[in-house]
């Protein structure tokens, strides 16, 4: 293996740093009288061979994970223009509050009287999210946006079943996130894809033609994944409700709307909120997130159990007496640590900061659209908090959107979301968020324009990018063909 950059060698696996007998920490010896383990555990249940965990001293563990961490792009380093992902800065105070002893050390089965502060935090976060979303009731239990969607689809089912027929279909526009159709399938529904209009919106006439008494509801992201506000929302809500259905908002793009307008006021019955997008909890390299679901009053009694109660005497408790609930979706009460971060964030933004965030996000997005729009085509025009460009014009040079994305990595920035939404050919979806400066946006736009000119002059140069990353393009076909998903001793 010839590494061109000896400062950036291929990291060994933690297993390859292992030496028999080494250890990274000490474990207390029990100070109670002990007996041989064989007297405590029946022989038939005893493991002969211990699990092959690595044996590594602490300094080596720290070096190992530090070394591999340096191969990551991350928000604290530079820009992430990822559309629909809302990669905003993660305020450091949130990390401090989530780790306060008293919040981080609580066993979920402590008695209610011993967790009043934690329950009050959850209650107040729920109240704030209800106000921001314009809804009447909320569950904080879903562990992620996709699980929030699943709760939404189960609410469809519970609502219609109570009326006598769960119905069969859920309508989803062709611009929707993949989780939407995957979710309704898991909830036992058939996903019915609706083509977007030429303006990239849901077409009320097209919707009306597929609505009927077999449709449980409609899932509609707003602004949608093209960044477009669904300006016919009032008509859409009326049509869905007239057909007896429910209207669900995928809240992935709530950052564009908060404090400006409210899903509840727009006619939605259900909305899920991604705390790891809109409310700044970190993405953690792919989780944990949290996906609270807020609903109108008529669906409140179906929400997962337990919900929270705030009694007249000022105490908080978990309410399990909910006979019509859809049930539990998480082992406990949800991703509490994420809730602490979101609560801290909302309290620090306050009533003034919430709409200011949405305005700044829209301004940053519009600026990127203005600077790139003459070079990169926007088939549906400028969006609100994100815009979708097309890299199709580069095809004449043999360059694809994937190549543009990979070349951008050489500029020390993450790639935009690419090939999504599916309705735009060679899609390049950018969402700058409110936490980027004009300088950083200019650096991004300059890089995108330079890549377009590189593609025209020297297509192969762009097609072979990236050059400066810890590894270069990886052989995904090989990974798929012969999956190697774990280390086995003697493998390397």
């Amino acid at each position, binding site marked *: 293996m010839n590494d061109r950059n000896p400062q950036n060698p291929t990291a060994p*696996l933690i297993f390859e740093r292992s030496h028999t007998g080494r*250890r990274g*920490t000490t*474990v*207390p*010896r*029990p*100070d109670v009288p002990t007996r041989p*383990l064989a007297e405590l*555990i029946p022989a*038939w*249940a*005893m*493991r*002969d061979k*211990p*699990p092959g965990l*690595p044996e590594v001293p602490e300094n080596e563990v720290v070096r190992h994970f*530090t070394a591999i961490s*340096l*191969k990551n792009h*991350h*928000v604290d380093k530079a820009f992430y223009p990822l559309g629909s992902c809302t990669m905003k800065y993660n305020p450091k105070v949130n990390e401090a509050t989530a780790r306060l002893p008293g*919040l981080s*050390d609580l*066993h979920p*089965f402590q008695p209610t009287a011993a967790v009043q502060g934690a329950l009050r*935090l959850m209650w107040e976060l729920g109240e704030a999210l209800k*106000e*921001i979303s314009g809804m009447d009731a909320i569950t904080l239990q879903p*562990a*992620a946006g*996709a699980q929030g969607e699943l709760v939404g*689809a189960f609410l469809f089912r*519970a609502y219609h079943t109570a009326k006598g027929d769960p119905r069969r279909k859920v309508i989803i526009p062709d611009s929707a996130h993949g989780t939407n*159709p995957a*979710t309704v*399938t*898991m909830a036992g529904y058939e996903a019915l894809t609706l083509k977007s209009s030429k303006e990239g919106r849901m077409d009320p006439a097209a919707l009306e033609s597929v609505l009927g008494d077999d449709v449980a509801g409609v899932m509609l992201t707003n602004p949608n994944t093209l960044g477009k506000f669904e300006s016919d929302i009032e008509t859409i809500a009326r049509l869905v409700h007239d057909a007896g259905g429910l209207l669900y908002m995928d809240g992935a793009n709530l950052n564009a709307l908060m404090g400006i307008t409210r899903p509840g006021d727009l006619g939605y019955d259900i909305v899920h909120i991604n705390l790891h997008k809109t409310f700044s909890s*970190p993405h*953690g*390299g*792919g989780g*944990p997130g949290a996906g609270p679901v807020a609903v109108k009053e008529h669906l409140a009694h179906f929400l997962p159990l337990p919900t929270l109660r705030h009694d007249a005497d000022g105490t908080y408790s978990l309410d399990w007496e909910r006979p019509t609930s859809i*049930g539990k*979706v998480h*082992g*406990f009460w949800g991703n*509490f*640590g994420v809730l602490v971060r979101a609560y801290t964030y909302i*309290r620090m933004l*306050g*009533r003034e900061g919430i*709409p200011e965030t949405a305005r700044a996000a829209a301004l940053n997005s519009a600026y990127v659209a203005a600077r790139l729009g003459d070079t990169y085509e926007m088939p549906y025009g400028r969006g609100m908090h994100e815009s979708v460009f097309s890299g199709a014009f580069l095809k004449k040079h043999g360059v694809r959107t994937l190549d543009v994305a*990979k070349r951008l990595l050489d500029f020390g920035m*993450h790639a935009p979301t690419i090939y*999504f939404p599916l309705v735009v050919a060679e899609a390049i979806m950018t969402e700058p968020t409110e936490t980027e400066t*004009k300088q950083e946006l200019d650096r991004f736009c300059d890089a995108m324009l330079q890549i377009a000119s590189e593609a025209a002059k020297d297509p192969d140069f762009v097609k072979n990018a990236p050059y400066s990353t810890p*590894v270069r393009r990886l052989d995904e076909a090989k*990974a798929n063909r012969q999956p190697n998903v774990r280390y086995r001793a003697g493998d390397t």
Partner: protein
Amino acid sequence: MMRVIGISSEAELFTDIPEKFRLNEPLDLPPALSEWEAVKLLHELAQDCQNLICFAGAGYYDHHVPAAVDHLIRRSEFYTAYTPYQAEVSQGTLQSIYEFQSMVCELMGLDVANASMYDGATAMAEAALMAHSIQKKRDKIILSITVNPHYRQVLETYNLGLRIPIEIGPRTSSGMTDLDSLADLLDDRTAAVIIQSPNFYGIIEDLAATAAMVHDAGALLIAVADPISLAVLKSPGECGADIAVGEGQPLGNALSFGGPVVGLFAAKQEYIRHMPGRIVGLTDDIEGRRGFVLTLQTREQHIRREKATSNICTNQGLNALAATVYMSTVGRQGLREVAEASAQIANYAFDQLVANGIEPLFPGAPFFREFAVRTRGTARTVIEQAAKRGILPGVALSRFPHIDIVDGLLIAFTEKRCKDEVDLLVDVLKEASDA
């Protein structure tokens, strides 16, 4: 910026929103707090919670988290990174997930593992759906009643739409899955059997015997495991399980009032293409350098949409990282010591409680680090009284559905508990039964 955009006010960016829906009044939220005020408020909330000496478990355990774990997961490079779709700039996350998968396979004794699920309960629910989809001609799932009742509730919710028939396997009077009754329930419609070991009551189940019976009937075995126990107990894989899941919280994750945690999910090689969630694979880059990518993505929702194996998108990345660092730090020997210390302290406590007249719920049943006792009066009252002495003596069985024991207390032990604390526990329970 507005000049470049060609607008004269920010309001022009929102003209697509019909006027009538635009908020004219500020939201009814409290005004902004400064950082100090926010920290002070959060301190107040934290102080309005009581830190108790923890004997509660039920799938969720108070183990020590070595300092290196939080130190490493607090690195910006890990916690502020996105999902590793752009592999070239995500090798840190991808390699750590590959190592996580490898360690989960080692614990579970199985061939393949995914990048994690939301928690143990959802991992079990997804395992049931996966087994159901593997078994094309069989549709029934049998769930032992000794599986954590909250896991059962989550499975029932996940099953609201698919409506897979679920039958409940009864237990014996000694708190173990009744294998004779299980044999009667097994039939040619049975897709899978779900069993937990150590089970909800802390009792070690005979997984190998169950596996043999289940396989004879042509069904798959899904095992739910406590990862700490797997340092000393036979792994689900060794016993013949086809899919194994578990709550990864005990592996270096803070209790954090129930989340975020990490669901463990492993299976036999032949089922890899049926697995839910992200999977990282090893490959090479164009210069022959070893690297890692998200692989087998055609199972997943962003490619397959309504035909995906699950709707799950995120894993619990940072919690999986905490588990990986934990397993690296305690290592092979340390994990065994954690397991053994937990078992030793549990056995000492068991003997002391019995000597003081406290009655075990299932005397004689083999347990690992958790067992149930009878309390005089309701367990809830005992717990409330004990809080006054700074101790959480366990979990009241009566708080779970499908359990009809009101005076049962489930008590769990970790390496953090010392003799003085156990003696206090004995004293508290003895006092409650004398009262």
